[in-house]
């Protein structure tokens, strides 16, 4: 089967993987805390895409969990959590910014004690 013409989960999964990798790279490499938070959002959304892909093209056709709604439900949870996380994350960044006058994560290294 030709990869580019098959309407299967692969396309979505590959796209999700690329997005996830981009997000992970952003988390690891970027120095700005805001950008890091945004990269986390990107990773979460890559995961959401995976959920939806498997919801549309289920691996087990007659799952007792229902055909596609469980994937959608999980996505909603993720969106809600991501919103909360972003709020908390931004609040932390704000708090740190007030004491350090900086959003450069390289300077936040007091975790090691």
């Amino acid at each position, binding site marked *: 089967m030709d990869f580019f013409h098959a309407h299967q989960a692969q396309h979505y999964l590959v796209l999700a993987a690329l997005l996830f990798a981009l997000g*992970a790279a952003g*988390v*690891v490499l970027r120095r700005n805390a805001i950008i890091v938070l945004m990269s986390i959002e990107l990773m979460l959304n890559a995961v959401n895409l995976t959920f939806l892909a498997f919801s549309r093209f289920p691996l087990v056709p007659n799952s007792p969990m229902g055909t596609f709604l469980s994937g959608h439900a999980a996505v909603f949870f993720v969106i809600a959590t991501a919103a909360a996380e972003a709020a908390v994350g931004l609040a932390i960044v704000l708090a740190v910014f007030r004491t350090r006058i900086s959003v450069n994560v*390289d300077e936040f*290294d*007091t975790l*090691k*004690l």
Partner: protein
Amino acid sequence: MEVSWLHLLPLLPLLGAVTCGLVGKWLPKGWLYAVALLAVLLSFMVGLRAFFGLDETTQLFHQTAFHWFSAGSLRVDMGFTFDRLSGALTLVVTGVGFLIHVYSVGYIDEDPAYWRYFAYLNLFIAAMLTLILGDNLVAMFVGWEGVGLCSYLLIGFWFTDEQKAYAGRKAFVVNRIGDAGFLIGIFILFTQIGSVAFSQINATVVPLSVASLATLCLFIGATGKSAQIPLYIWLPDAMAGPTPVSALIHAATMVTAGVYMVARLSPLYVMAPGILAVVASVGALTALVSALIATSQNDIKKVLAYSTVSQLGYMFIGVGVGAFFAGTQHLITHAFFKACLFLCAGAVMHGLHGEQDMVRMGGLRKYMPSTRTTFLIATVAITGILPFSGFFSKDEILAQALHTKAFSFLTLTPRGNVHLTWLGPLIYLIGSFSAFLTSFYMWRCYFLTFSGEYRGPEDVHPHESPAVMTVPLWILSGLAVIGLVLALPPSWVHGSFLERWSWEHFTEGVFARPRGGAPEEFSALPGFAIALLVGWAGWACSYALFFKRGLAGDALLSEKLRGVRVALANKLYVDEFYGRAVVRPLWALAHGAWRVIDATIIDGLFVNGIPALVAWVGAMARRFQNGDVQRYAAVTALGVAALLYVFLVRGG
């Protein structure tokens, strides 16, 4: 006959030792003395009761106190045998031991550690009785090690003095060499006979090779404990201990354990005539060498110590020529007069505030009449001048050596018959010459100490010891006199009431006869005549030199025999030789082993190496914890990626 009270003999002194050792420090002095003395006295009473229970029908008492341990086919019981030999020795140990305990009350009274002293002394009696009464080799070995321990503890009694502590260590280490031989002997006997009990060993006929090897190994043990060449070097140094200890342990009892062991295993030893020859030769050589050294020592205790080594040599001559009764008989008489001599030396030192050098003594007969008289009696006894005990017991040994047939053994070697007929007379000659030397050095000791004028410093006023010390002296010197009853030739006392006290008659049936048979009947009188001549010759030489001239006699002797005297005064450099030949190489080996095995491998590789490795890993790992969240995340991501790779790609 099986009885149930033999265990009391070693148990009572053991209880005394425990009491003195654990609570003695807080007991009033009188109570402590009462406990220590009563323990030994009661033990002596039990021994007496048992001794007089022996008769024609009851040859021995036996008790199996408890089953000690089993391993495979080895079964070891803690059992005691009280027969004529072990019974007599029990009486000697507890009797002389009690007298020395009494004496010690006067001697050690002012030492703050008197309670420790009596604990050790009681423990020694307990261990010695275990050694004597034990009915198997393992029980005997327990006692053997026990007396060794007490000897070590008491030599190093004043352990704050480095030299005395060293002397204790030396005794312990030298004895350990002998004990290794003893242990190997036990192992050989167990594998070949299948039992360690004396009754079994003595009833089994073993091949010549087994008997020779086992007896040789056991004899090595005896050379350690009984201070024979080549392991005699510890005994003179053992004089560092308190003098009553020298009398009890290093003269009268412990050092005779080797002789006792050979006599106990007489049926085994007569199966190995070659080893009997070794025993007798070692004994003769030791008697000669140590008597020579004794002639040139100035320390009164050293003279007595070498004299002890020499007399032990006589005992080994006795058992070595197959006359086990003669060896053990000399053991008993020697216990009396040598204990007396040592206690006299102790009294002299006590009266002179610790002086041991005979150069600073002299003329003490005026100040210490009791000590002087008892010393004189014991000297007469040891020098073999009529009529005291040493004369008969020593001459019996020499006569037996001259007439022995123990070395004329037949068809025992593959290459035919062996007749060492020359060995007996040779030993007789060496023994007689040693007897001359014995007489010479003992009279020298007597003259330098008690005759002439006092040569010590002005501020030391010699005085007689208290009665608690002189009474044991008198009793012991009395025993040294009446000990002669034991040693009278049986033909002299035949039919009289003394016959049953004659040791040779008394121990009939206890010892085995040598393979070559007992010596033929011989007349004792020529031997006595020669012995008397030799003894008086020694006295005459000593008298001419030391009584007439005092210290000048010593100087005269040194002038005539310069090199010999110097060598003898330095103990023939045996200690130095051992130091070079044995101690130094061993020391170097131990040092090397310490450097390589201990310092490098154990300390370096294990003790310090493993923590160093852990520390290094920690130092490496700590670089990862730098507080940078992004690096944590990167490492985590890489780790997850690696796991995914492993499980999904390679595992899938």
